[in-house]
């Protein structure tokens, strides 16, 4: 199921990539109204996809927080707690993997755009301040999960939720979530 969802979304991204490349290469050269209209439609479509990404990820991120905070209140709280911790780890791993890929592409884009060596270095250094914040946030979330797994109490689940909220906010600001 995971593979199917990822494949479909990746396929949409690839199709949009192909359409976008064609339109943006053709439109400036031919200068026809039809191509310009399609280029404009593509930009609208891209904005829609970006919005969709946020709509897709936001409930998942919120669901994790709800799961973590609700676990102690459930009838079988020990089992619910373990499930919440396992979910938190899987989610954090997924977020980390997604961010690593985004990070690689984003840094490549900075290099491509750089007009000279000094500007490129400065832009990379600037971006890496954000990268460091997200890395520290992910590390804090992993530590909170480790603490919850060791203590196995209700209070530590709230610690994961708090750490995850910080990471989620940082990723959202960057456009990953």
């Amino acid at each position: 199921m995971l593979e199917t969802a990822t494949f479909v979304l990746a396929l949409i991204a690839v199709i949009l990539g192909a359409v976008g490349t064609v339109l943006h290469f053709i439109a400036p050269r031919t200068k026809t109204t039809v191509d310009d209209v399609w280029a404009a439609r593509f930009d609208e479509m891209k904005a829609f996809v970006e919005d969709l990404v946020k709509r897709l990820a936001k409930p998942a991120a919120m669901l994790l927080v709800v799961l973590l905070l609700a676990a102690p209140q459930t009838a079988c709280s020990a089992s619910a707690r373990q499930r919440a911790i396992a979910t938190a780890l899987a989610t954090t791993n997924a977020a980390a993997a997604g961010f690593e890929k985004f990070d690689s592409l984003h840094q490549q884009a900075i290099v491509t755009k750089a007009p000279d060596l000094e500007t490129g270095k400065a832009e990379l250094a600037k971006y890496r301040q954000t990268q460091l914040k997200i890395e520290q946030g992910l590390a804090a979330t992993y530590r909170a999960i480790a603490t919850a797994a060791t203590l196995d109490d209700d209070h530590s689940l709230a610690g994961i939720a708090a750490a995850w909220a910080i990471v989620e906010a940082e990723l959202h600001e960057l456009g990953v979530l």
Partner: protein
Amino acid sequence: MSTEEELALVGAAFEAAAKIWAAVRDAKDGKITAADAMAGIDAVHNALAANNAAADAALAAKFKSEP
């Protein structure tokens, strides 16, 4: 940033969102140890360090070849 690069970033964000959604939806019961969680810290650090090294090398290569 070119359209291809922009879309690659959107694609990466899409994939990340799908994976997170699936991770929450498909999570199963299982005992997680502290070591499982702590391993994530090193994995993230190493992956980002590799990305940084690759970007630095690409930047150096780009301006080394230009006059």
